[in-house]
């Protein structure tokens, strides 16, 4: 095959390739888009119509009523505007040639038909941020359901949960990194008995399922009064995150130049000085990768928070999950809540994607 024809073939297939990718990307985006749009709609609108109706579309708009004369027998064929049909057919709705649709309202005794017409409906102007205010606040809230009834209930206090998540995720990210950096340096550059066997165990622990650790730790926590405390969950996340952190940082720190470290030791630096003055600053890219990884992991964690924090200090995933469980049809609250829970990890992720990918590459063995 000549290079020329290869090129033209490539150009032709490029269109198909782009088309396939665009279709996949649309499929990937639409679910989130739907939730985003819904979170800004009025509660009663959400119950009445799909979120896609915010886009301009043709919809039937009620344009009047038709009152059937009392003399007409509703059990026989009924003639309206020159069209004859049975009651059942009218109840299904009949569209006339001029585009108007007649639909029987209620039972036979009402003798009423609703007239509607297909019209273009534009973007709605009644979008609102009330859903967000309601779901973030902890006070009593009220909203309207699909039938227009006002419903009052306790707010979900997602704002508080947001703060709790911060309190879990920030120390839960920094503490294991600090401990792991010390350990990685020890394993990489210091000699001590048991080094090999200890590190082999760490590699084995990388993919141990959390399930086989949860119950014994919970027993310890109950005994120690750590259950439901931040200290408890930091320790738990530290324990569960350490194997990966140590492994990743070990890979990085052990690859640092030997001459550089030896020069420092010759100058009389202690291990501690070498670690704080040289290893830590040199490891910043690796530390950052793991930090983002761990932060997203903690922020999005549900299982560990469910077991060790629970109702005492609700984190966002917990609050959102209980919102789904208790009020499974309150879409205006759930969608807004979902976005509140997503906003920070999305921001971190989009801003620092480069580091995150690096962490992923290095640590694609985590359990």
């Amino acid at each position: 095959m000549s290079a020329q024809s290869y090129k033209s073939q490539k150009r032709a297939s490029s269109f198909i390739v782009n088309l396939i990718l665009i279709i996949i990307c649309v499929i990937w985006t639409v679910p989130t888009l739907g939730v985003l749009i819904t979170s800004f709609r009025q509660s009663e609108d959400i119950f009445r119509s799909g979120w896609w109706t915010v886009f301009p579309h043709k919809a039937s708009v009620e344009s009047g009523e038709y009152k059937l004369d009392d003399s007409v027998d509703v059990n026989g064929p009924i003639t309206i505007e020159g069209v004859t049909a049975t009651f059942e057919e009218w109840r299904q709705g009949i569209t006339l040639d001029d585009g108007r649709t007649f639909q029987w309202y209620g039972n036979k005794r009402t003798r009423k038909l609703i007239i509607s017409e297909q019209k273009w409906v534009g973007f709605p102007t009644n979008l609102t941020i009330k859903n967000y205010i309601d779901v973030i606040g902890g006070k009593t809230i009220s909203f309207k359901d699909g039938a227009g009834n006002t419903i009052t209930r306790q707010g979900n206090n997602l704002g508080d949960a947001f703060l709790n998540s911060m309190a879990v995720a920030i120390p839960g990210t920094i503490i294991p990194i600090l401990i792991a950096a010390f350990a990685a340096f020890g394993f990489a550059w210091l000699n001590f008995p048991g080094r090999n066997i200890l590190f082999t165990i760490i590699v084995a622990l990388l993919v141990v399922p959390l399930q086989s650790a949860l119950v014994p730790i919970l027993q310890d926590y109950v005994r120690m009064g750590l259950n439901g405390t931040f200290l408890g969950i930091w320790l738990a996340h530290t324990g569960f995150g350490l194997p990966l952190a140590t492994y990743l940082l070990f890979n990085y720190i052990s690859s640092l130049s030997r001459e550089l470290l030896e020069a420092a030791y010759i100058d009389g630096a202690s291990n501690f000085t070498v670690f704080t003055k040289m290893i830590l600053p040199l490891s910043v890219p690796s530390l950052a990768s793991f930090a983002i990884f761990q932060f997203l992991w903690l922020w999005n964690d549900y299982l560990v928070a469910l077991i060790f924090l629970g109702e005492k200090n609700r984190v966002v995933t917990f609050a959102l999950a209980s919102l789904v469980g208790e009020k499974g049809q309150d879409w205006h609250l759930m969608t807004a809540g979902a976005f509140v829970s997503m906003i920070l990890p999305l921001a971190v992720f989009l801003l620092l994607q480069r580091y995150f990918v690096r962490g992923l590459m290095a640590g694609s063995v985590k359990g």
Partner: protein
Amino acid sequence: MLNSQNTEEKINGVLRWIKTIPGRIITSIVILAATFLILQQGYLFLSTSQTSKLVQILVAIVWGVGGVALLFWVANWIAEQLPKNWGRLLQPFIFVGPAVLIMGWFLAIPVVRTLVASFRSALGTDWVGLQNYVFAFTDARMLETFRNNLLWLIFGTFFSVGFGLLIAVLADRTRWEVVYKSIIFTPMAISFVGAGVIWKFIYTYKGEGVGIQEIGLLNAIVTALGGTPQPWLSLAPWNNLFLIVIMVWLQTGYCMVIISSAIKGVPAELLEAARIDGATEVQAFFNVTVPYIQGTLITVITTVVIFSLKTFDVVRVMTGGNNGTNVIANEFYLQSFTYSHAGRAAAIATILLLAVTPIIVNNLRQFNKGRKGF
């Protein structure tokens, strides 16, 4: 100045005294006690304080992070006060000790404790032999979880890796690669709970009746195509697939990124040579690219397999494991916290551990191969 000279002498005296052995011991104890006092005060403040949440959190962060740093510093300081030989022997353990102890407490020892508990009764009072395992492998509910996890494993892995591979390969040939990849990758930042809400909304069902407008996208599409709306999440056994879709949605980005970077490493000359030999693009892909990135593919598949074995959040949030969607991790949760049967829960956790054991063995083999000169 006489006075300042005096003070200087006094300070020197104190320093000299500190350098003696009893002085070092006492100073060490004082510093250690002070450290613990600071940590304890922080703990008391955090557990009893009535101040605003924000203040508590700030204190928590400073206390947690600062406490760890302080402990390391103090431990190291004490080691440096010891006679040289002792210090040299002790110091590595100050560096690796905390990590090893915490991992021991939180992972290694619990694994053994869980194994022991799996041979004991509901409340952990008597030995019951293999009874919990007999339950795990014969109970109808458990068998259902195994079937479902197998579905997750097969379909979840196949579609995540398949889509990841497809998108990585296709995007590699376009000008908009970065845009496409970012869009597919972004769901990775979303929690399973958040994704649960997003997809629950897709699957939502209002019921049949005159004038009911479906607000769930899937039912709206089905209705528009002339079908009848369905309660997708209670439609066994298909509801499992609808849940697996969520995992595919979240995990494809991960597979794509890893595979994409491997594909970029395939030498262009190899592909060019295959094309010159008359291979079509598809043939070149399967005969050159796939063998070249085999190692990466295996890593990605392993990761997704582990993920699918441990799947919990999605099922918990979407169906609670009802309507035939139960999975191992959810049954573990139910046995632990709803039925309070510690023995059965431990047996289930151990089965999960056994399921990933081949992967652990493989990791160890890779690790040992990779570093002969450790």
